[in-house]
Structure formats: C-alpha cells, structure tokens
C-alpha cells in the first residue's frame, strides 16, 4: 500500500508561503500589558519576532532625581505593580546599606513574611493568567480567589491593595497586629491544599501539557548569557537563588529548598518547567512564612533612621523578586536627593530573548512562551 503521507511530505518539501508580517499588540490580551510584537511568519512558522517596548515608560529614574530618597519608594512600587512589596524592599535595602543602618530582627522578619506573601500573590497571578492564555478559565478564578486573600491581608497591614508604600529605610512603616498574624497563620494552613487542587486542574492537565511541554526551550547556557534570573533561570535547571546564595534580610535563618526545573514533564527549560518552578516556589514560600510567624521576634518594627536620609556612596545591589533579581544602582552624593537611581529589571532582559527563542516556533506558541516568561510591562518599561 502506498504511504500517502510520505508522498505528500515529499511533494511539499521546499514549499513556502508568502511571508506575512503580523502585528501583535500593544492591546492584546495575551501580552499581559502593553507589549507590541512584530511577528514575521511563514505560514504558521515564525521567522522573526521583534518586541517593541516603551508604551508604559514613565522614566521613574528621572523622577527620583528630583525628589528625596523616601519619596522614591512609591515610584518603585509602580514598576512591577503586581509585586510592589518586593520592589520597595530592594530599594530600601540599598539605601540602608549606604547609610549603614542596623535593622531590628522583628523588622527583618516582617519583611521576609511580606515579601514571601507577595511572591505567592505574584506567582498566583502568573500561573492563573498562564492557564487563561492556554485556554483554561477555571484555574484563573481559583488563583484570583486566593490572591485576593493575600491582598486583604496587605490591605489590613498598610491600607493599600496593590501599591503599598510600606517599606522604609530602617524597617517598615507599621507593625503587624496580632489579628493580622492570625490571618497569615490561617492562610498558611489553608493554602497548600488549594495549590494541590491547582496541580490537578492545570499542572497535570494533558491539554495544558501538550501546549507547553517542549515549547520555547531556553538552555542553561542561553539563560546565563542573557542574564536571566529567578524562575526563568531556575526553570532551565540552573541552581541560583539570591535568598540562598547571597542572603539578605535574614533569609539564611530559614529552611527552604531552591526549586529547579526537573523535567517532570517535557524537558528542562521549556515553558511547562518554568511554569512548574513557580508552583513549587509557592509551597516553599509557605514553608518560610510558617517558620517566621511561628517565631516572630518581639521588638521594634523600625530602626531609628533619619527622616530625610543623606547617604554618601555608590552601590549596586540585587534582591530576589518574584520575577527574578531586581537590582538598584544608586549614586548618592550626600544631598537630600539621589544623584542617580537605576533599576535593573529582570523582565526587561527576558523580553529581549523573544527574538532568538521564537524563531522556528509555531504562531500559537508565541503566546505560550510569552506567558511562561512572566513579564510585567510596568517593570519592562519603568
């Protein structure tokens, strides 16, 4: 019997369609913000993808030069508006290092709790919307329900749901009340079972796996050369986490594991593994939060810090945010205002991988790739 498919394949070898330029965005649901991608496609195959960014550029770096150090904190939370606490923490840690401040243990512990809760909230948004991009609507609602619980806790702590302005050089602006600590404890008991449910709904869903496994593979070599960090680097199997390798704010006191892409499904460095690193990190964050709230040290929630600090010196310092390592380069000249503040954003640099990674991909997989690298355009454009 004649093999019809083979004959068809032989006939179509070398057959090409006209190259088509498709404009994706800036207003497109799957771009998670205002990202424009110019895609050159040959039929369903991508030949080139040029990301065009800057639609959300507010140049916070220029704004901070005209304001006092403390007035820069609200600007940092507006960079990555779904993980604002972590952004603020990096900024105040850099200022503290310039001032040489000693932070009370309670303030450090509060910061760890807050930034791990923020990591869960941020990863829930990422995981939920990724499911939405891949056609699963239900996990999105479950993720937002649980994220809302964290936002309620944050609202009780500092009065805001998204843009907190909570961190201060020296500590945090308000202490945790016993009521809030109970709520956090309840959340740590409630959340792991919900995460198991998320695994049943999305992680092990065969449609989701076939959309994401073996798609958009970033090797560890490529990830390092691109300077990727956070879940994107660890999804490629490279063990690097600043919380372990260069601890700040007392992370060395807590017991947790660094989650890597281990190819439970698909292969190391593909979209599914990057996604699954985030899910595993949420379990680890719960582990950290439980340890901290069980033994929350008593004491002050802030050190005696000057209201208008005038640091001298220059520093580049990185912290581990939900989306990777966020760095601040601060040039302080002894004045009330910083001479220069620059933020290194992990999302900015991961967006630059699109051109290389999307070549040869199917058109629908661009959305899978874009969701798996988890960018927030506020941080890309700053």
């Amino acid at each position, binding site marked *: 019997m004649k093999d019809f498919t083979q004959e068809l394949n032989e006939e179509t070898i070398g057959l090409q369609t006209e190259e088509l330029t498709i404009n994706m965005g800036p207003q497109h649901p799957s771009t998670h913000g205002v990202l424009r991608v110019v895609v050159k496609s040959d039929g369903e195959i991508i030949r080139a993808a040029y990301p065009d960014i800057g639609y959300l550029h507010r140049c916070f770096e220029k704004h901070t*030069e005209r304001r006092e150090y403390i007035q820069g904190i609200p600007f940092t939370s507006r960079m990555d508006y779904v993980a604002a606490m972590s952004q603020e923490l990096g900024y105040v840690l850099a200022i503290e290092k310039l001032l*040489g401040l000693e932070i009370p243990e309670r303030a450090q512990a509060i910061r760890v709790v807050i930034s791990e809760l923020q990591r869960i909230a941020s990863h829930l948004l990422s995981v939920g919307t990724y499911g939405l991009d891949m056609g699963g609507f239900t996990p999105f609602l479950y993720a937002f329900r649980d994220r809302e619980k964290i936002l309620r806790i944050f609202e009780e702590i500092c009065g805001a749901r998204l843009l907190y302005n909570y961190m201060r050089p020296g500590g945090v602006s308000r202490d945790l009340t016993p009521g809030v600590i109970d709520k956090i404890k309840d959340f740590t008991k409630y959340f792991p079972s919900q995460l198991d449910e998320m695994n049943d709904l999305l992680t092990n869903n065969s449609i989701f796996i076939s959309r994401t496994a073996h798609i958009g593979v970033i090797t560890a070599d490529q990830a390092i050369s691109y*300077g990727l960090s956070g879940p994107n680097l660890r999804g490629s199997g490279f063990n690097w986490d600043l919380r372990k390798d260069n601890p700040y704010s007392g992370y060395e006191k807590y017991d947790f594991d660094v989650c890597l892409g281990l190819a439970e499904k698909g292969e190391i460095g593909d979209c599914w593994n990057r996604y699954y690193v985030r899910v595993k990190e949420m379990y680890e964050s719960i582990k950290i939060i439980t340890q901290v709230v069980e033994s929350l040290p008593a004491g002050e929630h802030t050190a005696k810090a000057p209201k208008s600090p005038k640091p001298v010196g220059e520093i*580049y310092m990185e912290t581990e945010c939900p989306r990777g390592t966020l760095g601040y380069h*601060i040039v*302080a000249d002894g*004045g009330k205002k910083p001479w*220069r503040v620059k933020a290194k954003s992990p999302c900015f*640099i991961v967006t*630059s991988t699109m051109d290389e990674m999307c070549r040869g991909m199917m058109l629908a997989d661009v959305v899978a790739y874009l969701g798996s690298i988890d960018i927030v355009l506020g941080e890309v454009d700053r």
Partner: protein
Amino acid sequence: MSDSIGRTAPRTFVNTAIHQVPKSVEASPKTAQNVADALKAKFGAETVKAVEDQQAGDHFVIVDSAKISEILLFLRDDSAFYCSNLQVISAVDFTPKGENEETQRKAFDTIELLYALQSYAHKHEIRIKVRLDRAAPRVASATGIFRSANWYERECYDLLGVHFEGHPNHKRILLPPDWIGHPLRKDYEFPEEYNGMKVPL
C-alpha cells in the same frame, strides 16, 4: 570557536551535570584590589585608572575605555574570575553643575558606565567602570561577549546618548524613534510638546 569579530560562544559551567550546583570550584571572593592587580598584570599598568573606594557601598575598578572588550572577555573566561553573568550596564551623567547644590561628590565633566559582573562559580561580584567624554561618549559594544548587553546598551544610548561601536541594532528602545535628546542627561531640557501633544510636567 570564534568568528571574524572575535565573538566566542558564551561559556558556562553546567554543560554535563545540569542539576549540580556549580560549586565545584572553590569560592574565592575577590576584592577590587585583586581585580585591579590581575588586570594590571594582564593588560599593563596603564589599563587601570583607579580603584574607587566609596565611603559606603561597593568598590569600583575604573579601567581604560579602549580596552573594555578585552577586559570583559578576560573576566568572563579566566578561571580566577568566571564572571559569566553581566548583571547590568548602567550609565551616570556627571556634570560640573547639577540640581543637587549641596553635593559633596567631586563633579567632573564625564559620563560613567558601570558594568556589574557576577560569578556564579565563585559567588563574587565585580564592578568595572569606564569614564567617557561627555561631549561624545563612545565605547565598544559588549554584545559579542554577553547577549544581555544588547538591550542594556540600547537603553544607555536611549536615555543618556552613549554610542556603542559595533552594536548590531543601535536604536532607541524605550522612547519613540523621533524623540529629541537623552532625558537622563543632567542638562536635558524638557520638551513642551511632542508631535503636537502637550507634555505634562
């Protein structure tokens, strides 16, 4: 393996056992003075301009801008440093007169570029700086050494007007292509309007 313009494939330490943490090499943190000595031994004494010790914060090695490509390649591939990660390229404008009147910092008419390098194997961070002429800042591009340099350099060009020679796509990245001026320069004048739209201040 290198092509005609000296571009080599970026190397890492995790080719075979990818799950292993690359901690096989003994951690040996480097101070700025160690780096300066190594660079002097390799490239000659005049390569290192100064070692800058801040009162607080990081320590910086200021090097000759003409040799930055060789230095970055050396720091990436030499076994004593193994700086495989370029964390950021950040540019700072220093003018004789700025907005900060009460400045304690010596003002000099220059643009400083910071290359923040990090080693996964040795767990150390190295800060290299070059000083460029403010009127016409030009430096060789690092895109052949680190892929991440591509967008960082475009950002430095966009916001501070630093020219990177040999960059494959030397265009603005955050601002629109027809924007005039480089906003993070200290003497930047804010435009009153852009394409007929009033710019709010």
